[in-house]
Structure formats: C-alpha cells, structure tokens
C-alpha cells in the first residue's frame, strides 16, 4: 500500500465481510427450511429468507468491488483518490441502506421481483451511492495515469450503474417485465461484471506474478472483448420461454455457448501468467484465491452454464434445481472468490501487517470451495431427477420434491461446511496470526513490473 487514501477500502472490505457472513448464515437457514418446512413458516416465511440471502450476496459483492476499486485505483492512476471523505460517507450510506432493507424485509416491506426486491427508496439510495462512487473514481482516473486495468474496471462499473436503471422499469405486461429484468440480471453477471472480474484479476496478476503490464493488459482486452461479444447476445438464453420470438432459441443457444470461451481464457490467462512470471510473492493465499476464482468460475459459469443453455435442454431443465446448482457455483467462483482474492491480497497492507494467517485462510479456501462444489453436485442430482419426473413423466411438483428430499439434506450438510469455511476466511482476514505464521517479505515491496 503506497497511497494513504487507499485505506478507505478497509471500510468496504469490513462491511462486505459482515454481509458475507449474514448471507451464508441465512442461506443455511433457507436450506434448513427446505428439509424442516415448518421452521419459522409463520414468522419469517421462505420468501423473506431467500430475499435476504440473495440481496445480501449482491450488496456485499458490490461493496467488495467498490473496496477493490478504491484500493487499486490510486496505485493504477498513481495519484490519491479525489475525495477519501466522500468515499467514507458513501460507505456508510450504502451500509445503512442495506441494513434498512434487510430489517424492512423482516417486516414484509419489499417489492417483488426476484433480486430486485428493494423498495423504491432503497433503489434510489443505491443510485445515489453509485453516483457518489462513480464521481469520486472517475475524477481520480481523469487526473491520473490511465491504465487498461483502470479503464476497463471503470467502464464495467459505469455500466453496472446504467443497467441498474432498468430496475425502475416495471411494466404491467409480465413478458415485457421479464425481458428487461434480464438487462439487469444477465447483463450484469455475464456482461459488465466480467469486466470487473477480468480487470481485478489482471491487477492481481501484475502484482503477484510480476509479469509485464503490456502482456497482461493485452490479454485483458482480449478477454473482455470475448465476454461482451458473446455475453450480450447470450442474453437470448433467457428469452426462450417468456413470450419472446422463437429466433432467440438459435441466437441464445449459439452465443451463450460461446460465453464459455472467455471463462476458459481466464483460466489460461491466470495459469500462464503464474508460469511465466515465476516470481515468488509471499502472499500465497491471494494467489490461491486468484487461480481458484478463474477455475471455479469456468466450472460454475462455463461448464454448469453450458449444461443447460441449449434451448432443447433448457426446455426441460428451466427453473429446476439444475438452475440453483449453476447459480451457486457460478456466483461463488466468479464473484465471491474474486472478492476474497482481492481482500486476501489487500488486507495485510491495509492493516499495516506483514502477510499473515495464510494457513488458516487456505483452510478456509478448501473448506468453502469443497462445500460449494458438493452443494452443486447434490443440487445437480436433485435437478436431474426433478427434470425427469416432472418435465418428462409429468409427476406433480410436490410429489417430486418428496422424491428428492435426500439431496436437500446433503445440501444442508454442505452448507454447514461452507459456513464454517467462511468463518475461517473472515477470521483469517480480520485477526492477525501468531508470530510463527508470519512471512518476512513486506507486502509493499517495490514491484519490478511497474
């Protein structure tokens, strides 16, 4: 850490970790309701539990992205942030808005489109927070060095905000509603969030492997190009069965299949950089998370996405537990692991400590990742059986759910493992280790690649 304004990232990482814990805890609760359906059914029904789980996820991921941006922007632009005080104010606004939303949900105050349940004033609050953020970061970028990493990251963040505006458009016609709803959901995770993912990974590769910036940034443009060329028209894989024209079956199938390519390219990119760089950075845990992120994103998004993306397959699997399996591994691999990678890299510097608690952090990595993979497998089995019984044989939904009850117990078990893993991760990031766990090379050592 070389610029003092980078420290504002600490607020964002702290807030993100708090919400991360809440998200996973509430996820375990949702998993418990699946197998013990009378649990809380009168006080906090499943739909409220679910919206807290998913909203907390999205908010903490965004908070993490903001923290990452505040951390890396001064280094990339070689100048202090435009206004650290504005950044701190923005954090508190965002964090309080998130808490107000969660408490409101518990009292039944919400709107009702999946992932966009926030009441209108919270949505407006999110826009205000985004504007403060974009203003602060854009001015920083304008006065400093403009690297490809910083440019692509800011482009991604701007479009996150722009596509969010579609959440204010809620027509009375359900088909139209759905068509534009995906402009937020799909164009986020399979579009502009990939710009954020690729640029943060590129930053981490420059720092951790010491490979020349020119090489890394060329890869970056190729990857984000592939992401958007495929991901924009790939939206078509959600336009099969909602009243949109039949040609989307072709466009959606072809382009979304090609969406696998940029995810694969990120695997090649990260491993190639590590191999080429050959530099031993002391922060091994950050490297583990970076590589893990590329790999699990490829499996969760790429492989599990492709599994159900062709229209003739999706006709049967659409909206089953197969979707839940994919949603979990993709979000975890691409965006949860990305955030943890960045925090693992940045926290020691932010807390003015040498790289610490590596072993614990890596245990957290394996436990959480193992748990999420196992959860994905069980949900996939559940989904395949469900698809066959319900979509092929035509068996009644509730009877089918009884048939796959066992898988939901396994899901709960793996969820508990994930909760333990996440606890380890948070502990290892926030609490310094004992002397023995320390490494002597300082984090802020001069970087040969710069």
């Amino acid at each position: 850490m070389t610029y003092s304004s980078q420290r504002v990232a600490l607020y964002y990482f702290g807030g993100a970790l708090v919400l991360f814990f809440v998200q996973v805890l509430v996820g375990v609760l949702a998993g418990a309701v699946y197998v013990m359906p009378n649990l809380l059914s009168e006080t906090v029904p499943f739909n409220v539990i679910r919206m807290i789980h998913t909203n907390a996820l999205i908010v903490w991921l965004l908070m993490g992205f903001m923290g990452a941006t505040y951390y890396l922007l001064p280094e990339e632009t070689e100048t202090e942030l435009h206004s650290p005080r504005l950044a701190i104010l923005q954090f508190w606004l965002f964090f309080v808005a998130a808490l107000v939303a969660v408490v409101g949900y518990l009292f039944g105050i919400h709107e009702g489109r999946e992932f966009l349940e926030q009441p209108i004033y919270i949505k407006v609050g999110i826009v205000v927070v985004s504007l403060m953020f974009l203003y602060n970061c854009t001015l920083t970028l304008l006065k400093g060095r403009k690297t490809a990493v910083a440019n692509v990251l800011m482009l991604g963040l701007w479009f996150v905000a722009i596509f969010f505006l579609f959440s204010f458009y809620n027509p009375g016609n359900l088909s139209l509603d759905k068509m534009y709803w995906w402009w937020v959901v799909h164009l986020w995770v399979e579009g502009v969030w990939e710009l954020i993912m690729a640029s943060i990974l590129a930053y981490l590769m420059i720092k951790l492997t010491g490979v020349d910036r020119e090489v890394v940034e060329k890869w970056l443009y190729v990857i984000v190009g592939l992401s958007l060329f495929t991901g924009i028209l790939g939206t078509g894989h959600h336009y099969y069965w909602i009243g949109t024209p039949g040609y989307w079956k072709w466009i959606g199938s072809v382009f979304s299949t090609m969406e696998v390519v940029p995810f694969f390219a990120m695997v090649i990119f990260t491993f190639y950089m590590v191999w080429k760089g050959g530099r031993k950075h002391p922060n091994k845990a950050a490297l583990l998370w970076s590589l893990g992120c590329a790999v699990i994103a490829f499996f969760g998004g790429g492989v599990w996405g492709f599994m159900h993306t062709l229209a003739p397959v999706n006709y049967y699997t659409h909206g089953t537990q197969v979707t839940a399996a994919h949603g979990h591994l993709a979000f975890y691999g691409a965006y949860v692991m990305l955030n943890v990678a960045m925090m693992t890299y940045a926290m020691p510097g932010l807390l003015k400590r040498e790289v610490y608690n590596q072993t614990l952090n890596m245990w957290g990595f394996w436990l959480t990742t193992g748990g999420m993979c196992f959860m994905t497998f069980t949900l996939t089995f559940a989904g395949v059986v469900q698809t066959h019984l319900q979509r092929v044989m035509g068996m009644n939904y509730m009877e089918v759910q009884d048939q796959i009850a066992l898988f939901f117990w396994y899901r709960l078990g793996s969820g508990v493992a994930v909760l333990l893993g996440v606890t380890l991760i948070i502990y290892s990031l926030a609490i310094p280790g004992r002397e023995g766990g320390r490494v002597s090379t300082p984090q802020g050592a001069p970087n040969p690649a710069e």
Partner: protein
Amino acid sequence: MSERLTKSAARNIFYGGTLFFLAIFIALVVQSHLYILNVSSNNDRLTESIIRGKRLWEKNACIDCHTIMGEGAYFAPELSNVWDRFGGKDDPEGAREGLKGWFAAMPTGIEGRRQMPQFNLSDQDLDDLIDFLKWTSEIDDQNWPPTDAG
C-alpha cells in the same frame, strides 16, 4: 499471445465489437418488444385488473417461493400454468372458485409439508390475482412448460 496483435489493436477490437453486438442486441429487443405487444401476450386484453393482480403478485413476493414461466424460486410449484392445472380451460368458474379455496386454506399447517402463508386478500384482490394468473397462462411461450405439472 501473438506478437502481431498489439495492445491498442486489441483495445479497438474490444470497443468496436462491443458496439456492434450491442447494436444488434438492441435492434432485436425492439423487435421482440413489438412482438410481445402485438403477437404473443394478448396485450389488448391486459386489463386494469390484471395489472393490479401483477402488483399484488409483487407486493407479496410470490416469486421468492414460486417460479412463473420458469423464473423465480424453486421452493413451490410453477404458476404460469396453474390456471390450466385447476381446469381453467374447460371450466373457468370452477377454476376461479378452486383457486380462491386454495388461498383460503393456507397455511395447511401439515407437519413436514412446505407451507404457503395466509395473505388475507379481499375477494377483489383474489379476482385480480387470478385474472393475472389466467392471463399469464395464455401467453404464447413456445409451449413451455412441457407437462401440466409445470
């Protein structure tokens, strides 16, 4: 990566290509928008009551337990064709009464069975909500779902 591709060439391809695909996408979505309004969704029969029904659907966050046209949560049955499951095609009055009876009977309180809350909806609300479900069942959605089970 190949030496022939320079960084600035990669950047230009990225920006140019993105604009190209975005333009195609927007054109197709405009076309789909018109298709929904004019062909697939009976927009001319989208009454005030159906829209009120949709707002009730949202206010009560039914989507976070149910799927509708395959999107939402996977905790409870698909509802885009629940009108058909309740026999609405042959006996609309019977289906309406059946659905009202369903809402009145919630929660079942059966031990070990998933629960749907009691929403205490007025008769008018129920009619609106059911109009919305009926209208949804009539959208031309490429014959999805494959079976009546949803």
